[in-house]
């Protein structure tokens, strides 16, 4: 019989077991109804299995029933933080298929709003990312600036989130008279804030310790798993659709594609922070030079695409959104597929999370920047 003392290595006969815990679907760090089944040993993650479908609405099946004008409205329910860019993807696809050339005015306004959307989405991500690792202030700061962008959206089209300002053939209507003034006021306000953000979080020693070297995604894995957007660029792979396959007015502006080489959580964080600077730079080039022109080209009331297959991609705040349509010449597509950036980015989660502790796992999901309706569709 053993007599235990304080220093007796009594645990040497014991072993630990792996067990499973649920993270989500109501966990605050999963940002939506994402359920992750974690297999853990102590606090170390051995396996992650995502369980999806809590907000699956089968948008692709609905698309086979609805006409093309209606489909535009479905897309901003997917990645609701990039709603304007999602709408643009479908509109560009229809315009290319019908060979409609929109005016320069439309292209420039779309691009300005794309970049405002990107800043707004990154701001929300930044606020929530800080909150996930325990810095509650960032959430308030991020939302404070985001509010100004949402006000511009509201004055432009009436909606703050699900915009639907893009329609096939152009824009629903022209921009309001104070659009340029408000956008410039936002840029003036926002530029010094980025420095404040960096002082507050980026250079914070606790934050750096929580993110550096955590969740390293290698270049090879990023490519093999089809990762996209800032997550991919954090690993040093060029994949910016705005550079590779320019659309709207991206071919006439000068901006930098941001890369990092390390692929860890902090690098993914830095990519998004620097992307906001580039977005400001893009808007500044365009905002004083919005050309005159028509805002809406004439299209038929019922749009029918010619027979064939079409693929259109855009760069949302999360990466490449692809819209793939097989048309049989009718008013609804025969088959419509949305290749959503979040879906591919989620698939790599097991690869980068294994071996880390649960606390670090929260930071890892945060920099994947998942939006669940975008994954479930």
């Amino acid at each position, binding site marked *: 019989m053993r007599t235990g003392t304080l220093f007796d290595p009594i645990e040497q006969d014991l072993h630990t077991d792996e067990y499973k815990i649920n993270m989500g679907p109501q966990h605050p760090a999963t940002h939506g109804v994402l359920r992750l089944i974690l297999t853990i040993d102590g606090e170390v993650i051995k396996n992650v299995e995502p369980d999806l*479908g809590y907000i699956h609405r089968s948008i*692709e099946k609905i698309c086979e029933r609805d006409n093309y004008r209606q489909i535009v409205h479905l897309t901003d329910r997917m990645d609701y933080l990039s709603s304007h860019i999602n709408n643009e993807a479908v509109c560009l696809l229809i315009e290319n298929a019908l060979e409609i050339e929109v005016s320069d005015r439309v292209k420039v306004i779309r691009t300005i709003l794309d970049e405002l959307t990107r800043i707004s989405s990154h701001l929300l991500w930044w606020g929530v990312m800080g909150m996930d690792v325990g810095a509650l202030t960032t959430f308030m700061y991020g939302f404070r600036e985001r509010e100004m962008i949402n006000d511009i959206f509201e004055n432009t089209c009436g909606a703050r989130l699900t915009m639907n300002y893009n329609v096939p053939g152009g824009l629903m209507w022209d921009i309001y008279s104070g659009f340029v003034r408000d956008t410039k006021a936002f840029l003036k306000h926002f530029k010094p804030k980025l420095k404040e953000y960096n002082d507050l979080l980026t250079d914070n020693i606790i934050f750096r310790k929580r993110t550096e070297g955590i969740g390293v995604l290698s270049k090879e894995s990023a490519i093999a*798993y089809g990762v996209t957007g800032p997550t991919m660029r954090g690993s040093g792979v060029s994949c910016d659709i705005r550079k590779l396959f320019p659309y709207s007015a991206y071919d006439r502006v000068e901006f930098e594609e941001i890369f990092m080489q390390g692929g860890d959580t902090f690098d993914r964080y830095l990519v998004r922070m620097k992307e906001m600077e580039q977005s400001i730079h893009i808007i500044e080039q365009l905002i004083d030079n919005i050309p005159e022109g028509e805002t809406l080209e004439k299209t038929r009331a019922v749009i029918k695409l010619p027979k*064939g297959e079409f*693929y259109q991609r855009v760069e949302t705040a999360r990466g490449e959104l692809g819209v793939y349509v097989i048309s049989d010449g009718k008013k609804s597509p025969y088959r419509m597929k949305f290749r959503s950036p979040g879906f591919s980015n989620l698939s790599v989660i097991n690869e980068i999370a294994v071996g880390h502790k649960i606390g670090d796992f929260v930071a890892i999901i945060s920099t994947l920047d998942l939006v669940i309706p975008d994954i479930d569709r």
Partner: protein
Amino acid sequence: MLDNQSIKDILFAQNDTLEFSEENSAFLNVWVAPEELHSLGLFLRDDPRLRFDYLFCMTGVDWPTEDTLEIVCHLRSIPLGHQMVLRCKTGSRDNPELDTLSDIWPTTHMHEREIYDLFGIRFKGHTNLKRLFLDPSWDGHPLKKDYVDEVNLIVK
């Protein structure tokens, strides 16, 4: 970066049963027989002239008039920049089965689960083939054209 004709020539030299089409599509489409799907996938990824290492979109299509289901894989080469579409039709619509591509492009692991869920195509060799979005007890595969659901699907 290779143009479509060069990709076609390389693939035709490798396998002369392939079917090609560029009509009504933005990309070069390549149809492969189900039994050669996996070996062609490996060739596309590993051949130094092609290096299709990035599969960015994978989906299924139902063709009831031809009694077949089809998978469509959009491929891009990150180092070289060219693109193509790999397609494969299943033998039958009622018992569709194809080889998995998830050991070639790991991203298809989840895409194949989605296709199984919504089209019912089973992927041989897939390590975790179960429904992705819908409940395990769900009846039928919703993206098939003859799917009927009187409760959840409003048909106009």
